[in-house]
């Protein structure tokens, strides 16, 4: 289980790194799917099989399909890749990468000091999750359903083709 955690974690970091450096949107999307699938394996090794299944179905399945649909709708071709190449000059990487490296090192240092103990000693299955979700967190489920409804209406409204101006 430990080996699976390390391998999946390394693949997740590597494919995310490849994702943020790709010029073609479809290639980046495929690397993002790989990253999400390896995070699902990490969830499984941490003793959270229900969330691992949901990560595959909802994240790597539904949300990524939405991205692929939009990329296909926009019909990006070689022109978009050339444009990306002109935007992504090497100098652009310096500032954000420095900031993020400082942040990551700081986080790692803090975690190395404070976080202790072993994760994933016991498996927390779907039954426990469901009992917590529909027990003390019931109000959260209601709020999430309202959020999803709001997202649906907003996506419908924004995705509509604007009507011709009547003047």
């Amino acid at each position, binding site marked *: *289980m*430990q080996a699976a955690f390390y391998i999946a974690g390394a693949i*997740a*970091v590597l494919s*995310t*790194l490849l994702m*943020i450096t790709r010029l073609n949107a479809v290639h980046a*999307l495929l690397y993002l799917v790989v*990253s*999400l699938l390896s*995070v699902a394996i990490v*969830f499984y090794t*941490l*003793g*959270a099989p229900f*969330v691992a299944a949901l990560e595959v179905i909802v*994240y790597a399945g539904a*949300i990524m399909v*939405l*991205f692929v649909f*939009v990329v296909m709708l*926009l019909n*990006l071709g070689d022109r*978009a890749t050339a444009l990306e190449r002109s*935007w*992504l000059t090497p100098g652009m*990487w310096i500032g954000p*990468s420095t*900031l*993020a*490296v400082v942040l*990551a090192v700081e*986080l*790692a240092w803090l*975690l*190395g000091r404070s*976080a*202790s*103990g*072993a*994760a*994933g000693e*016991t498996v*927390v299955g779907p039954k*426990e*999750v469901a*009992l*917590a*979700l529909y027990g003390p*967190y019931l109000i*959260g489920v209601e709020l*999430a359903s309202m*959020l999803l409804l709001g*997202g649906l209406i*907003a*996506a*419908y*409204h*924004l*995705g509509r083709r604007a009507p011709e101006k009547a003047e």
Partner: protein
Amino acid sequence: MLPVSMGQGLLLASFLFALGLVGLLVRRNVIFMLMSIEVMLNAAGLAFVVAGSRWSQPDGQVVFLFILAMAASEVSVGLALVLQLNRQFKSLDADEASVMRG
């Protein structure tokens, strides 16, 4: 089942978060910015699941489900905005939309 140490799980989450942050700051294409936001949300969820699994409680997984619902609605609105942006400016450059016109 050999357990994983909690610090390493949180370390993975912080690295993924930092990578998503770099992507968000560097890219100018709105689709890539949305994808980086997905990575960051996923990393935050991973931190929750690691913490929940450290104490063998389902709460971390419950919060991950909420993050999942939030990410789904955020992506649907965000991608609709991307379509509108492409329709209005014929470009996916985030800098094109730096000025708000009523």
